[in-house]
């Protein structure tokens, strides 16, 4: 009873931490200076989401999130970054505001 309660407390604490980290990672992914870092953080976010799904007793979702959300989406985004940047004449990593590459 006590152990269970204790376990619950510990796990809840883990959940809290995970929640905070999730939010922080998401914030990093969304508002990072460079897009590349944002995408990398997004992949991390995906993996953390997978953890969260586990915590929500949804292992299927955890698998899917890891494979699809983090893995594939990450790959797609990274590939896209590479292409979008590779053709910009100005080789600036800080493309947040350089939305339109100069010709």
């Amino acid at each position, binding site marked *: 009873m006590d152990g269970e309660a204790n376990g619950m407390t510990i796990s809840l604490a883990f*959940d809290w931490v995970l929640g905070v980290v999730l939010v922080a990672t998401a914030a990093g992914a*969304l508002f990072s200076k460079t897009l590349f870092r944002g995408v990398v953080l997004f992949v991390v976010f995906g993996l953390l989401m997978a953890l969260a799904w586990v915590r*929500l007793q949804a292992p299927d979702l955890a698998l899917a999130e890891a494979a699809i*959300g983090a893995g594939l989406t990450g790959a797609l985004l990274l590939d896209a970054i590479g*292409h979008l940047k590779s053709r910009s004449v100005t080789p600036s990593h800080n493309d*947040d505001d350089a*939305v339109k*590459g100069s010709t």
Partner: protein
Amino acid sequence: MNADRLYAYVGVVLFAMAMYAFLTHTHLLRRLLAFNVMGGGTFLILVGLAQDGRGPDPVPQALVLTGIVVAVSATALAIILLRRWFALSRSTALPEDQS
């Protein structure tokens, strides 16, 4: 507060934050990121809130699985369009967001 409720709240924060990002970013790839985070937040709310106080529920989990596939389809489509658009216009933002 139980874990389910907690993750629902996390979802709320994620949704609101990503929505802010979606609305403020002009770079389309960043918007896509925001869209995915928003989606994540929504999925958390869907599952977390449904399971809050009732235990695991396969239905919202299945829905989220579907949602994830849909989201990745949409993301992929957006990236394809974006890349084609970039090839034509050398731009990563919509015309009205440039300058």
